[in-house]
């Protein structure tokens, strides 16, 4: 063996310093990020004197008139997220069951790579397709009631397609991770394949399935570009129904920043929206952690 470049002890020191520095850097970025968003967002309340309560519960968002009620944005954000989950969940679960329990050969070789391909498509492409296909379909189905076709329902559908690959792939992994012994244990009790899938496999995979769904929801909640293209995104009051155009927290942010001057009330109010988004994402992540910890505890 060639002579060492450095004594072993010193080499270990270098490794420790390098990896430690990486950790420090990441931690620093995270902390700076949170600090910056919090500082800018909170100044809407503490410097500009917007009332926090009316910010959360106010029902109209017209920054040009100095009216900052974020409730319509919050409602729309949750609305499209829940719609997307509602559309995606049965399809993702159904195909995951097919891939793992019914046709593993076809599923693993053909279906899964196909789904993973969907994951790589940029969101602007989803937006474009949504704009031309989904909005047109809305007009065709609902006629005048749909207006231009842009609205909460269109946003939900486009988001559903966007999160489908993530939820499906994670569900497949979750089901595949259930040990075969559980299935045999159920067969040995005279249960049919369907009873086994429904009562044993899905039940065992529950924590990973929940994680899959919540990750999908987080993505749907935070997506801005594709939603903005299909949802209308100019409305300033509470949405009247699934077909009415609306704005989400994210679309209000992206469309608002172009005409907000740095340091103005409007500017800070937008940061406050960002803070709200971040806080909610944090809640999602926390839920995932709680589920993960509970799953680990139940395993043995």
């Amino acid at each position, binding site marked *: 063996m060639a002579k060492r470049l450095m004594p072993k002890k010193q080499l270990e020191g270098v490794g420790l310093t390098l990896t430690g520095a990486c950790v420090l850097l990441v931690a620093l970025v995270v902390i700076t990020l949170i600090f910056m968003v919090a500082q800018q967002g909170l100044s809407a309340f503490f410097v500009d004197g917007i009332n926090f309560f009316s910010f959360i519960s106010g029902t109209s968002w017209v920054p040009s008139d100095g009216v900052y009620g974020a409730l319509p944005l919050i409602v729309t954000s949750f609305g499209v997220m829940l719609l997307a989950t509602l559309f995606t969940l049965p399809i993702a679960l159904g195909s995951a069951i097919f891939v793992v329990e019914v046709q593993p050969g076809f599923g693993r070789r053909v279906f899964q790579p196909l789904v993973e391909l969907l994951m790589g498509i940029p969101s602007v492409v989803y937006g474009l397709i949504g704009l031309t296909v989904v909005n047109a379909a809305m007009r065709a189905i609902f006629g005048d009631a749909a207006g231009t076709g842009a609205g909460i329902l269109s946003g939900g559908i486009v988001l559903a397609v966007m999160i489908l690959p993530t939820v499906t792939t994670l569900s497949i992994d979750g089901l595949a991770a259930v040990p075969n012994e559980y299935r*045999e244990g159920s067969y040995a009790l*005279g249960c049919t394949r369907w009873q086994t899938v429904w009562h*044993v496999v899905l039940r065992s995979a529950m924590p990973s399935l929940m994680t899959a769904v919540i990750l999908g929801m987080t993505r749907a909640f935070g997506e801005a570009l594709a939603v903005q293209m299909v949802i209308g995104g100019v409305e300033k009051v509470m949405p009247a129904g699934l077909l009415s155009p609306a704005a989400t927290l994210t679309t209000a942010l992206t469309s608002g920043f172009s005409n907000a001057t740095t340091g103005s009330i409007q500017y800070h109010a937008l940061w406050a929206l960002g803070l709200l988004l971040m806080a909610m994402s944090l809640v999602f992540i926390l839920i995932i952690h709680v589920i993960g910890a509970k799953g680990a505890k139940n395993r043995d």
Partner: protein
Amino acid sequence: MTPTAGECSTLLYTKDVTVKYDYMHEALHPTSLSFDAGTVTALIGPSGCGKSTYLRCLNLMNREIPRCVVEGEIHYHDHDVNTPDENLFELRKSIGMVFQQPTPFRKSIRENILFAPKRHGRIKNRAEADELVETSLRQAALWDEVKDKLNQSGFGLSGGQQQRLCIARTLAMKPDVVLFDEPCSALDPISTYSIEETIRSIASTGICCIIVTHNMEQATRVSDRTAFFYVGNMVETGTTKQIFSAPNDQRLADYLSGRFG
């Protein structure tokens, strides 16, 4: 062996059963054995000799394995069940199976027991359910340890308790045959002892128990009859006493003296 009429009743027997994996690899050559109600039969032999393969024929579990072919006759209550139109879900309600790895379901202890009876529509009311849970757990010698935590997850139990929960779950279906595939391999000696006791006691209620084991002391402790498997063949069978004290076959004698396996 020729069971004398009236003395004991043959519940289950196989005639020239063979098993092929992947349509061609014959892992089990023609095997004929019979099993009586209320007895324990041990299947012994070096690992990979086809014990599990044979055991899994008896409740048609091998049908769950793709490209696996089971040929020959498997008579249960004097009726050949190895036919394409046999309802294997019905069959498995009365031929239970316990595996090497304890696999409680992600449910409470109570729901683990009631899972299969509920699926098969056997539970009419709460009182019936309570009674079934208690008798099954008592039969598996687990009742005293878990009676205060029936609604807790089965995952919270120790390995030995989990295995006894799996036995209780099987007994809740009121089977007349229970197959055990190395039920103690993953357990400590004390749990092993308690499972052996359980097997003896359920056999004394008239259930036919068949246990695969690579532990020869276990076979002598727990079984009435023993069958020795070697490279896909059932080489010798007889009373456990005879097999261990006066083996006829040279391979069995070598195996018992620890020369291989």
